């Protein structure tokens, strides 16, 4: 005979204002199998929990039902209380009388009757509950960080400094990301590379960090604490073990006119190349698409030049497998190109640039060594127009969101231009100025007040070329819509920030959610910004949404701490609500016939094959077995199984049936 304790919560007035809780307790108390039933104002409070613990001991209860809020709120609370009283926590269930009853109905007789039904269902279920133990899964204390920009670098360093191992993979030949392309950063106008490169070197030299550049994630299997990552190490064609980074091969390479990705298409590079002088690692790779040897078997000058024979022509891509316990996504963002804008020339005007291209012009390591020059004729522009919100906040172009950083970097660009070209005239066409960070507003005011940048509120309808100049047709909305036409030498578009190329595919590989713009989805927009809905995978930086460097670094450290928290246990405790295939004594062994419909159904690849062998080693039968580490308890296999051989612990067919019948047997 069961001895179940029932505890009905008033939840202040949340439940009791709509449901007659005393009546519920009274009627349930009269049920067969219920040894004790009370109602109380706040079951989750200390005194409330004490009631439960004392009742468990006093009445020797073998089951507890708490009629209160949603189990998502307090199931752990009440289960912990039971455990402390010596009752197996999985013998405790909650009936949701709040979200499922009092919060969605008006006060009435029927509402109370529904509440009674809900509790009755759970009581019948608990009668069939069996004690369960949590599943313990080992944790691999190694993290995989995907993306070697400032977010990935910061996260790797933070995790490595807690004493755990990190594998950092980056698909470009060097780490550094977009931050390495910037000339100066706002609001301090620090040289970007000067603050970044020490971190890059630290990553390369850190004993806990294994750095793979020119590498991409091939696949990720497993679950939190136990991931298996396959990483593709793209063939560099250069043996990094022997290469000294002397750079002689780069000097001699005859293919010199490949548009440089690092210089955003403004400069050129060779086929064997290091992306930029401060690259980490500072060793070249060969671009097989453009190299003469790979295209038509000619040249090989780099091999002849190399003093240590580091060129490896026949090297193939290599796939390695690493076991990790957590993954941090730090894949960053891209910016739209000038070809995205029909009204600004479809990308055909050489002197219409993106903000990133302007950064390369302003950068001392850029194609013009820090001088602002027109790509078309190399002249120094005397009049520049900066167009903010180019593509952002533009539903007609499919990008309704604000790209956050453009107001600030446009002010920065205008200031840098004024500092370099003293007699230059710069105009910024803007809609709003978003300068919310620390010292940001003062920075923009400096541009307007000290550096005489001309800010005009209005957007630009068109830019076209005439006689080597760019005619900009804008408007000043603050003057009632007065048209403003400027004959500029250069136009810089603050183009929209978008998700990094390949984000969608990566998210699908990792089973991570993403939004319509392919930015990765955080688990909760306010309270869980660095976690995803996939346990064990965390987010850092602009891959989640456009953001500036301070926020990126903060977020990266946040993700690192989550990883460290995960690694602070040797074992991960998992809920035992998983599927189990029944086992019987020989000669039956199991009612499972080995049809493996469950394997077809399982979305998590959690079904394994188990061979039942006789004493002589011969195979009797192959049946299904559930990997309790992978199983998520979804129950799809239970629905598929034709012989009812598989069931979910804690939600067995018997338990669910008991709940349903309790309602029907009225």
């Amino acid at each position, binding site marked *: 005979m069961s001895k179940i304790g029932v505890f009905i919560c008033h939840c202040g007035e949340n439940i009791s204002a709509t449901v007659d809780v005393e009546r519920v307790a009274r009627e349930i108390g009269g049920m067969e199998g219920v040894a004790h039933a009370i109602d109380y104002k706040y079951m989750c409070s200390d005194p409330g929990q004490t009631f439960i613990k004392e009742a468990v001991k006093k009445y020797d209860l073998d089951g507890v039902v708490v009629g209160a809020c949603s189990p998502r709120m307090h199931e752990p609370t009440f289960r912990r209380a039971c455990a402390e009283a010596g009752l197996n926590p999985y013998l405790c269930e909650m009936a949701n009388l709040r979200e499922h009853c009092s919060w969605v109905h008006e006060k009435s007789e029927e509402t109370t009757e529904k509440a009674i039904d809900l509790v009755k269902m759970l009581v019948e279920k608990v009668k069939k509950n069996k004690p369960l133990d949590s599943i313990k899964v080992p944790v691999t204390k190694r993290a995989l960080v995907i993306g070697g920009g400032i977010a990935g670098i910061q996260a790797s360093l933070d995790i490595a400094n807690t004493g755990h191992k990190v594998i950092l993979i980056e698909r470009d030949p060097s780490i550094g990301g977009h931050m390495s392309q910037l000339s100066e950063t706002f609001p301090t106008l620090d040289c970007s590379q000067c603050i970044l490169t020490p971190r890059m070197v630290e990553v390369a030299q850190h004993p806990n960090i294994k750095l793979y550049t020119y590498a991409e994630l091939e696949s990720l299997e497993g679950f939190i604490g136990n991931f298996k990552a396959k990483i593709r190490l793209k063939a560099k064609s250069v043996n990094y073990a022997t290469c000294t980074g002397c750079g002689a091969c780069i000097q001699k390479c005859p293919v010199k006119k490949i548009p440089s990705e690092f210089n955003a298409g403004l400069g050129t590079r060779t086929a064997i190349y290091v992306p930029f002088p401060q690259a980490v690692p500072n060793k070249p790779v060969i671009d097989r698409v453009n190299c003469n040897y790979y295209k038509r078997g000619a040249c090989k000058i780099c091999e002849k030049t190399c003093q240590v024979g580091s060129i490896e022509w026949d090297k193939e891509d290599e796939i390695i497998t690493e076991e990790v316990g957590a993954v941090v996504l730090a894949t960053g963002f891209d910016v739209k190109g000038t070809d995205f804008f*029909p*009204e600004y*020339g*479809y990308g055909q005007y050489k002197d219409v640039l993106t903000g990133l291209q302007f950064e390369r012009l302003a950068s001392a390591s850029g194609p013009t060594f820090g001088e602002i020059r027109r790509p078309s004729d190399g002249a120094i522009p005397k009049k520049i127009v900066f167009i903010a919100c180019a593509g952002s906040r533009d539903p007609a172009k499919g990008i309704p969101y604000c790209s956050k950083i453009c107001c600030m970097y446009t002010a920065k660009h205008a200031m840098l231009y004024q500092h370099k070209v003293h007699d230059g005239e710069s105009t910024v066409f803007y809609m709003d100025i978003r300068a919310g960070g620390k010292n940001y507003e003062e920075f923009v005011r400096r541009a307007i007040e000290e550096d005489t940048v001309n800010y005009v509120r209005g957007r630009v309808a*068109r830019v*076209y*070329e*005439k006689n080597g100049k760019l*005619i900009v047709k804008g408007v000043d909305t603050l003057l009632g819509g007065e048209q403003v036409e400027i004959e500029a030498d250069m136009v810089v578009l603050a183009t929209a920030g978008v998700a990094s190329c390949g984000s969608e595919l990566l998210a699908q590989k990792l089973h991570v959610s993403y939004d319509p713009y392919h930015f990765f989805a955080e688990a909760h927009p306010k309270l869980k910004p660095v976690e995803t809905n996939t346990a064990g995978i965390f987010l850092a930086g602009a891959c989640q949404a456009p953001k500036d460097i301070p926020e990126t670094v903060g977020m990266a450290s946040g993700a690192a701490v989550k990883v460290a928290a995960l690694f602070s246990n040797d074992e991960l405790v998992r809920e035992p609500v998983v599927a189990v295939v029944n086992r019987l004594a020989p000669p039956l062994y199991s009612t499972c016939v080995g049809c493996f419909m469950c394997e077809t159904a399982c979305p998590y690849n959690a079904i394994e094959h188990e061979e039942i062998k006789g004493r002589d080693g011969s195979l009797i039968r192959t049946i299904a077995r559930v990997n309790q580490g992978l199983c998520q308890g979804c129950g799809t296999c239970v629905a598929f199984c034709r012989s009812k051989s598989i069931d979910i612990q804690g939600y067995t067919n018997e338990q669910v049936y008991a709940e349903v019948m309790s309602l029907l047997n009225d």
Partner: protein
Amino acid sequence: MKIGFYPGCSLTGSSREYNESVVALAKALDIELVEIKDWNCCGATAAHVMNEELSLSLPARIMAMAEEQGLTEVVVPCAACYNRLKVTQHELEDENKRTRVIEILKQPYKGDLKIINVLQMLEAYGAENIKTRVTHPFAHKVACYYGCLLVRPHSILKFDRVEDPQSMDILIKGIGGTTLDWAFKTECCGAGFSVSRTDLVAKLSGNILKDAADRSAEAVIVACPLCQSNLDMRRGAINKTLENPIDIPVIYITQAIGLALGIGAKELGLKRHFVTVEL
């Protein structure tokens, strides 16, 4: 190739040379044009400015007559008529509006006619095909002027691209011409203000011609009778506002192609222009 044909009021009146060149070119390319019986004026700007239902009923009648005649595709050389017919067809996808218009017309209307402009007809015939028939290469540097109504609103017309369209340029290149990259391809010429606000037409059309002249265009090629009229017939008024009068001729795309195919200037109506055409 057989196709329905809606000339519209301009082609039978003040832009007669456009009609002549379309008919002559169609004959040379073996395209049979079947004129819609008893067609009426599409209402142009006047109708949609003054009354919405009128602006929908007039084009609807034209399309209803075409459907009655068994036509499935109609070419509309006048850009304004093309625009009105396409927009009306789109608006009448709304059931309430369609019911109301059918009630007014007292005529059935299905709305499944395919309406194309003269550039689309030439594209369908194939720029390559035209190239093979060229006997007098049109070796001139020209500015192709599209005007507003051929490419906007893009969501309804879905023709070419809104900024810097290329369909006319491709046709001109196909007959041996060079096209300019210039800034006023789709800026309005002054449209229906030809009579009521000739001063504004002079200003807007003047800007267009000035840019073409600055870039050394030998001619401006158009595909809209209103644009042609504003740029050509109103040249006197335009030149009064300019420092240096401009004498660049303005001809239709069909006339340009016609010349390349060896059709005579008179047959193409080139003698009817105000600004002398010597190409």
